């Protein structure tokens, strides 16, 4: 009986201990995400995960088909992301210092898919970024064009040909590939290589106004996961970037009819599809290492 009592007692102690343990564990996980301290900074990234409709994206020889029923292959895909801004629930925002806010996503190099920046601790519900390079930076002198905006080997953009030398403008979005339906004449690809080229840019002009294809994208994070930025940890907003939307967006077009679109009025239609590329899939918070992503 005494033993029983002891048993009951030990069970009570055990229960109490479990409760205590749970409390401690709870407290511990809470210490991982204490109230954000705006004086501290944590790491934040947006992940640009390129997809093709309901499939993953890969380069040729993989074949995709657009809404017009045209089969095509991808050879090259690169685009600039810049001017990252984060919003909290109360409407306040943090703009990443502009000098640190330029990225070149190259689908051929998976390490370029993250736009890594440092931001104050906080719970962010909305992110904003530009696909392209803003007109202010596009007008700046050479010494202000650093990192991916420079012409330097290893870090710059021109190895990827993301610049028009003749009009001093960055190419915001560049995609090239093949479609066997393209004609071999001037309206198609006179080299007979069946290539399509979409080089979309236009920052609005320096002295004279012209094309402005700069698109600001806003992504609401409330449904698929807010970004909780904490010191020493990383918050990663994982976006799907559906490249198929270039053909199948609100402006649906045929590769054969428009195999080459560069600095021309028609490029406006393609740039208008850009905002429809992006969906927020999920957010990974309190990440300790990029290997977890």
């Amino acid at each position, binding site marked *: 009986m005494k033993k029983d009592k002891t048993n009951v007692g030990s069970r009570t102690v055990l229960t109490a201990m479990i409760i205590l343990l749970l409390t401690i564990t709870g407290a511990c996980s809470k210490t991982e995400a204490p109230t954000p301290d705006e004086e501290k900074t944590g790491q934040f990234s947006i992940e640009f995960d390129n997809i093709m409709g309901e499939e993953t994206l890969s380069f040729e020889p993989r074949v995709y088909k657009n809404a017009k029923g045209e089969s095509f292959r991808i050879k090259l895909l690169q685009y600039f992301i810049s001017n990252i801004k984060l919003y909290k629930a109360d409407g306040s925002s943090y703009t990443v210092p502009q000098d640190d806010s330029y990225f070149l996503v190259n689908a051929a190099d998976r390490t370029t898919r993250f736009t890594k920046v440092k931001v104050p601790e906080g719970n962010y519900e909305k992110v904003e970024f530009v696909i392209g390079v803003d007109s202010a930076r596009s*007008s700046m*002198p*050479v*010494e202000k*064009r650093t990192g991916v905006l*420079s*012409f*330097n*080997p*290893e870090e*710059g953009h*021109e*190895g990827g*040909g993301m*610049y028009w*030398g*003749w*009009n*001093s403008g960055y190419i915001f979005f560049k995609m090239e590939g093949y479609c066997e339906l393209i004609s071999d004449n001037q309206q198609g690809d006179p080299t007979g290589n069946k290539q399509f080229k979409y080089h979309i840019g236009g920052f609005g*002009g*320096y*002295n*004279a*106004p*012209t*094309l402005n294809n700069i698109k600001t994208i806003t992504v609401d994070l409330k449904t698929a996961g807010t970004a909780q930025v904490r010191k020493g940890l990383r918050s990663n907003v994982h976006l799907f970037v559906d490249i198929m939307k270039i053909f199948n967006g609100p402006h649906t077009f045929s590769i054969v009819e428009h195999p080459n679109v560069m*600095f*021309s*009025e028609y490029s406006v239609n393609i740039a208008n599809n850009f905002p429809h590329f992006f969906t927020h899939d999920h957010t990974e918070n309190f990440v300790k290492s990029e290997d977890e992503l």
Partner: protein
Amino acid sequence: MKKIFVLIGIVALVWACKKGEDSIPDLFTGFLKPNNFPEPTYNFSRNMITKEGFELGKRLFYEPRLSRNNTVACGSCHIQSAAFTHHGHDVSHGIDDRLGIRNPMPIMNMAWQKEFFWDGGVFDLDLAAVNAITNPVEMDETVPNVLRKLRAHPDYPALFKKAFGTDEITDARFFKALSQYMLMAVSNNAKYDHVMRKEAGYAFTEQEQKGYLFYQKNCSSCHNEPLFTDRSYRNNGLSPNRANDTGRDSVTLNPADRYKFKVPSLRNISYTAPYMHDGRFLTLNRVIEHYRTGMVDSPTLDPVFRQADGSLGIKMSDTEKDNLIAFLKTLDDRDFLTNKLLAEPEINSGFVVN
């Protein structure tokens, strides 16, 4: 006494040798704004011209490594003896003898330009080189690759160190050195300039003076003094060429800019033939005949060419034409063509000039 003479002789010889080695510092004066010129538009505070920076820029200007197969330098198509144009070529031939669609503009008085090239597509002199380097019919190369070649070259790291303090070869330093050379290409020693500066011994002849007055009345609204360009873009009534080059419109995509091209300077006009954006006119006489009788009407034709009687162009008698040509020749600046400061350094000789 004899010893003293020998000593003086030796000293003089040593001094002469030194002078020979260092002949450039005697020529290099830095950038000087000519008295009769307006304030430059280039922002020198971002790129102070130094002797070392200029010398590096000069070497780069004549460096064929700027092209894909190391055959074409800036100086291949911008030849000093032709006021830095490509004499005798309607359009330039670049790498592998590929032809472009435009006549190279002279590199002259660049510090006063707001925009560059016939269509004004480039708005910063520091970025002008990218156009030629990356154009598939000019140098067909990329800037990062040029920088790689310069970094691997035995001379350039030291030259960049002399110019910029460290041997780092970056895009900004590369572009700025090239700009330093181009900015020093100032042409302001034509007879016209001597006359305007009221220098002793210089005066227009009677014919030149009559030509000057005709110019002022009929040409100066676009080719205004002292740069002889208002740096605007205008349609001067040329028929569209086979390439259907629409000029400024290709940069602005504005139909109102169709067939408009940069108003070129009239300075060094005798040396910059052939004329117009596609080099279609071989002689100055033919250029003036175009304005007299050859204009083609189009919606964007510059209104200055529409006369009250409905005719197009500039009316002039044969005598007025002769006078005008006599005046235009006073804009030739031989000093600019022979200025040793700007001459190709011997070290770079060996690239194709033809």
